[in-house]
């Protein structure tokens, strides 16, 4: 089971793109919030949950996904969206609250919807789980072999929604994959205070034999690739749902502005040492004969796309005020 060069190259480019996107967002978010940080002001107001460090979770599975596969994402959605191929310009414009945004500015960073690539997200922890199961059910009803992926954090795995959705998905044998991004925290609450089981893949056994659990450690994109490949294939073949838990790293606060008083000192520095992107870059050069300039050109391409998206968002106008009253009903 080797990974093709094309896949590796897509994975690197996309991880890099996602990271660069978040780095830009981190900067953008502070615009207009200094010297006084006010969450409701600046270029991008509201809560902002960045995925910096968590790229392998999204990229390792999305390499196996098609446009017609479904993704339901939670409050920390950018890496998932980028990996799924959500329109980057319109996504960025949405986050800026502009009329050219995916939802004309009405959704925002936690409510990105791009039906063209079957992407949605929600700010309510756990809410995407049954919705993705229902999308999987629709695929099955329409005799399509598309699969549905619900991303959640390890914190979300303790919501009732997790249990109900997996039970349903197993009973109906849906093409359904739950990716649990275990970044050790739900806001400030460490996994040990939220989760009674060692890892959530072990919970697969609570839902019958057709549900398989996978555990990916060390935030490893290659291991994520392999686990996901099997899970996606099983789903496409109608063999049942999967739970993949990946150990991943949240480099930043829960949201931007989080003082992170709950974090042990030095933790972030240690995690940064294990940054998956330079590690993956090294691996590509060492084990997969990628050349530096090849990688640089992937990086440049990624940057270009992101820069273009931000420029588009900046240049776009705010929606007309009456837009606020539209779309309650269709």
């Amino acid at each position, binding site marked *: 089971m080797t990974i093709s060069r094309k896949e590796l190259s897509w994975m690197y480019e996309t991880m890099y793109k996602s990271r660069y996107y978040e780095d830009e967002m981190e900067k953008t978010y502070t615009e207009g919030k200094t010297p006084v940080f006010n969450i409701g002001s600046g270029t991008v107001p509201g809560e902002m949950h960045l995925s910096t460090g968590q790229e392998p979770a999204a990229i390792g599975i999305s390499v196996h996904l098609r446009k017609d596969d479904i993704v339901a994402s939670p409050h920390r959605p950018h890496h998932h969206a980028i990996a799924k191929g959500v329109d980057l310009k319109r996504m960025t414009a949405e986050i800026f609250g502009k009329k050219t945004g995916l*939802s004309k500015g009405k959704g925002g960073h936690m409510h990105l919807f791009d039906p063209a690539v079957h992407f949605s997200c929600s700010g309510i922890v756990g809410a995407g789980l049954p919705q993705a199961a*229902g999308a999987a059910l*629709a695929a099955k009803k329409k005799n399509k072999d598309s699969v549905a992926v619900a991303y959640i954090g390890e914190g979300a795995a303790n919501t009732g*929604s997790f249990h109900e959705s997996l039970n*349903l998905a197993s009973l109906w044998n849906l093409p359904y994959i739950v990716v649990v991004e275990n970044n050790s925290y739900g806001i400030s609450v460490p996994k040990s205070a939220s989760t009674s089981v060692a890892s959530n893949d072990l919970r697969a056994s609570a839902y019958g034999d057709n549900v398989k659990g996978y555990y990916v450690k060390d935030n490893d994109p290659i291991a994520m690739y392999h686990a996901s490949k099997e899970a996606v294939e099983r789903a496409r073949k109608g063999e049942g749902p999967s739970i993949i838990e990946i150990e991943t790293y949240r480099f930043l606060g829960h949201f931007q502005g989080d003082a992170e008083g709950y974090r042990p000192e030095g933790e972030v520095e240690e995690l940064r040492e294990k940054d998956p992107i330079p590690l993956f870059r090294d691996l590509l050069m060492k084990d997969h004969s990628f050349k530096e300039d090849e990688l640089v050109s992937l990086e440049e391409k990624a940057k270009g796309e992101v820069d273009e998206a931000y420029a588009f968002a900046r240049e776009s106008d705010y929606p007309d005020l009456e837009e606020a009253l539209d779309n*309650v009903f269709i």
Partner: protein
Amino acid sequence: METEKKRSLTGNKAMSEAIRSEMERDENVFVLGEDIGEYGGIFGSTEGLIKQFGPERIMDTPISETGFIGAAIGAASEGMRPIAELMFVDFFGVTMDQIYNHMAKIPYMSGGNVKLPMVLMTAVGGGYNDAAQHSQTLYATFAHLPGMKVVAPTTPYDLKGMMISAIRDDNPVVFMFHKTLQGLGWMDQLDTSIGQVPEETYSVPLGKAKVIKEGTDVTIVGLQMTTHFGMHAVKELEENGINAELIDLRSIVPLDKETILRSVKKTGRLLIVDEDYKSFGISAEIAAIVAEEGLYDLEAPIKRLAIPDVPIPYSRPLEQYILPNAEKIVQAATELANE
């Protein structure tokens, strides 16, 4: 055709006929919920459907309201037209997040790019001693939260016609049917729960109230059981020389305020009768609309008759004491007419 027009159906049969005809017409329509298969729905809303459509399209679910209502949302976003049944409206609390934060808001939050053409049907109402957790209507609980149409038809004719409209609507519709108006063999038998229903497909628009009886002295607004009680009350009032106008609301969102304001303009007196809790309910909203837009038409203070902000007690005399009925309507309307 003469013969068809004369056919009588109970409320539940009218509903299931509507679902049947839409399922025949559109293969994307399917139903999911607890005990809707072999059982035919606890209140008969899917009676007989599993025989025709099988368990793939009439799907019994586990007791996982968040799971299957969330699944209906996901399926709707992928082009299906699900009808999910929440067995009793009283159970909304285990799944309200899917209902109000997602079903109701995704169309808006997506800027209109994601449509959710789904129906959430649910049984409402008390009066048969099912106590505090199985007897509510909760009309206003749903109506207060934007993004869902909320309808509550009274008659078999409207149950069929509005169900067809609800299924065809591209917006999420909460379809509340009243248990006692289903005409089930094991419930109270009411004249209102059986009625003429054409065999052919027809639709009754959502968002339109219906003047059941014209009158000049006082306007009575009801819905479902309070309309039923209202029908009896207006007869008695008539006998007492009070010519009341009775409006059957039918739709809560959108609310047909024109019909109400027009009536109040004529009568100058308004009594709102509601089987929901009084405070922050339908009766409040209608009163407020009239106080805003029809104040100068009022010749007497508005009156509200609704459940006096207590959970529904079990014991029969206690439940009867707090529920609206024809007699209480007669009394309130009479007082109002004499104001």
